[in-house]
Each structure stands twice: as structure tokens, then as C-alpha cells.
């Protein structure tokens, strides 16, 4: 399932965020962030279960600070849902699967 999660960078973000018809949930994370690691498997599950309805992508803030700054990410994990390249929903902090789906499904 991990293959369905794309990796975005400062260089590729603008191009990739508008690809496809589904909304894109971008996970701003970093290696040193424990709560980010805790939600990683949850996001993989959601990517599998909501295939065709949502795409999930990751931005490693350590290597891609420009994108993190542009969207004023000051806390990780931050999840931002983009539709046609525009942010629709912003979730700050790790959450359980049920709560994440509840917030996301309203936009799918």
C-alpha cells in the first residue's frame, strides 16, 4: 500500500499538487517527530481504503522548508487537504484513524 503515497518536494510540489481529480492530503512530517511516525501507518491504511477518492502525499519538512513555510506549518504533523491546488482543510497534530476519517470524509 505504501506505493500509493507520493513524496513531494519544494521542486515538485506545485506541479504534483494539481495532478489528478482527487483531493490530495499532504502530510507535513519529519524523521524526528514521534507523533508523525504514529500516524504514518494510519495514513497508509486510509490511502488504501479511500483509493480513488483521495490521494495522500508526504512532505519532509526537514528537506523542504520552503513549502512548509509557504503554508505556515509550525507544528508537525500538520495535514492539509488540497483540492485543485487550494487548501481546504488543515489538521494540526496527530489523531486516531476514526477522528481523521470523520474530518476527511466530509470533503471527499
Amino acid at each position: 500500500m505504501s506505493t500509493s503515497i507520493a513524496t513531494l518536494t519544494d521542486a515538485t510540489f506545485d506541479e504534483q499538487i494539481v495532478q489528478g481529480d482527487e483531493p490530495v492530503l499532504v502530510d507535513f512530517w519529519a524523521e524526528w517527530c514521534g507523533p508523525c511516525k504514529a500516524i504514518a501507518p494510519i495514513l497508509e491504511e486510509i490511502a488504501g481504503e479511500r483509493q480513488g477518492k483521495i490521494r495522500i502525499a508526504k512532505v519532509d519538512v526537514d528537506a523542504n522548508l520552503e513549502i512548509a513555510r509557504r503554508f505556515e506549518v509550525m507544528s508537525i504533523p500538520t495535514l492539509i487537504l488540497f483540492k485543485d491546488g487550494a487548501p481546504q482543510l488543515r489538521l494540526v497534530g496527530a489523531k486516531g484513524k476514526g477522528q481523521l476519517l470523520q474530518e476527511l470524509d466530509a470533503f471527499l
Partner: protein
Amino acid sequence: MTDGPDVRDVIIVGSGPAGLTAAIYTARANLRPLVIEGEASSSSDQPGGQLMLTTEVENYPGFVDGIMGPELMANFRGQAARFGADFLTAKATRVDFSSRPFGIWVGDEGYQAKSVIVSTGARALMLDVPNEQRLLGHGVSTCATCDGFFFRELPIAVVGGGDSALEEAIFLTKFASKVTLIHRRRELRASKIMQERARRNDKIEFLWDSVVVDVLGESSVSGVRVRNVNSGEESDVAVSGLFVAIGHVPNTDLFKGQLDMADTGYLITQPGSTRTNVEGVFASGDVQDDVYRQAVTAAGSGCMAAIDAERWLETQHDAPPDIAQTPRNW
């Protein structure tokens, strides 16, 4: 309810050092514990507990050079799993300790157990001042190890005077241009070694006798308003980030009306044991300890709870069912 195959010998609620030690001991006693370990969160109320948000743990015995908090907890969990503990990554939402076997629910899903070990721990307190919640994730952070990175070359404030506050302040000097430690007294409660480290760190400035009364900023934190507790005078400190380490509150809402607790919310256990007021329900770790609150004391009391539960379960085998099923107070 009957003692069908679905009734566990023991369910452990919580998965910090206390819960996972209880899991190791009860698993090794062939009690096949189910650990309801909680769910992902950026607060300390998450699987693995408070150590999941820390970096280096220097005072857990057995690790000469220290160990990272999340790594230590992954080891605890792996050790419990090795002996057959089962894990459920979810938060318990309701318990019923009034009938036997005991009932624990995760949403609509019910679980039954002959005995329960409560080790839900404690979570970090927030300031509870205006604008704190609004600016959460925009300069107000609950996780210094996650968010320190975003405050490179920026001034920040840490509130508190205990070990956690000083540890955060020292950690954050790796990134911040300056760390103002705001404390309501003139003396720190933190251990001597942490106090010395903080005083020696020239990026840390102390603001004594002061409490934060508001967080300032439109789209992100631009400062905090503090009040001097002696003069009552208020002033603003310009900071881009705010980290709060002012103490903890036990995670006991789930047990209100069922387990005896102090006014502070901490569960009450019978002295020298982990027994609560309900026979067969045991409490261990920070959820019942507002004095020591260390990883090693939590682990120790988790071990006590496992032994208490195991011995109690043994007495139930011999007891006639009517006695075994009648809740008693001690």
C-alpha cells in the same frame, strides 16, 4: 454475562511504562493480557505515554549512555509482545466495573475481563488562557521535540519550573535565538542537575514570579502577556513560540463514579498495593501517583499491579461463584 472464551483474565488500559510493564509480567504469567493502548495524538496521552514526546532519557536504569524516549517505549512494547500480549490501538471510551466480568468499550465494541489494570497516565496541562487554543499549531506547541525545528533563530518562551520545563528549555536552545523561562515563583522545582544546566546555558533567560495571562498574535504567535504575581503589573514579551510544561492532570475521566479518586483526579489505591476500591481493578503509574511520577516508578508499580492481579485471580479460582461475583469494598 458468563465466563465465555471471550472473557480475558486481564485487560490493561494504557501503554506507558506502567501499562507495558504490567503487560510483560501478566503475559509471562500466561494471563494473555489485552492492552488497550490508546491512539495517536500530539499530546502525551498516546500509545507509549509521556516518554513518546521526549528525547534522551538519562535516568532510566540500565542505559549507561541514556536512551531515546520513543525507543525505550518501543522496547517495552516489543518485550510485552514477545510474551504474547495483545494490543488494541484505540482509546477506551467507557468502562463498567459494577458487574462481573468487567466491561470495557471502544466505541460500540465491548471487551470483557475478570481483572483490569488501569494505567492511563497523566497528560500535560495547558495554560487555559485566551487565544491559546486558537494559536495551537501556529506558535503554541504541545510537542517541543516535534516543533522546535520551526523556531530556528527565533525567540520563544517556556512556561514552568520543573524538570520537564527545563528539559524543554534546554532542548529548544538548539534552535531558538533565546528561550525565556517563565515561572510563577522565584525558585525552581527541577532537579539540581537540570537547574545547573539551565543556568549555565546563556540562551536561557529567567522571568521569575510571573504568570502568562494571554497569548498574543493574529495568524501566529507574536508574544505573551505576563503578570508579575507580586506587583500585579502586566507586560508583553515578544516571542514567536510558546511551550507549556506546568504540570500534569491524570487521565481519569473514564473512571468517574466508578473508582475512588482524590479531588485532583488521581486514583486512590490501598497503601502498599495497587488495589482500587473495586476488587479486581488495579491502578498503576502516574494515574495514581502525584508524588514520584518517574518512568522507573511507573514501571515498578506496573509490575506490582501485575502481581496483585495475578494473585487476586488465583483466589477467584477457589472462591464460590457468588462471592467471586459480588463487588466488595475494602
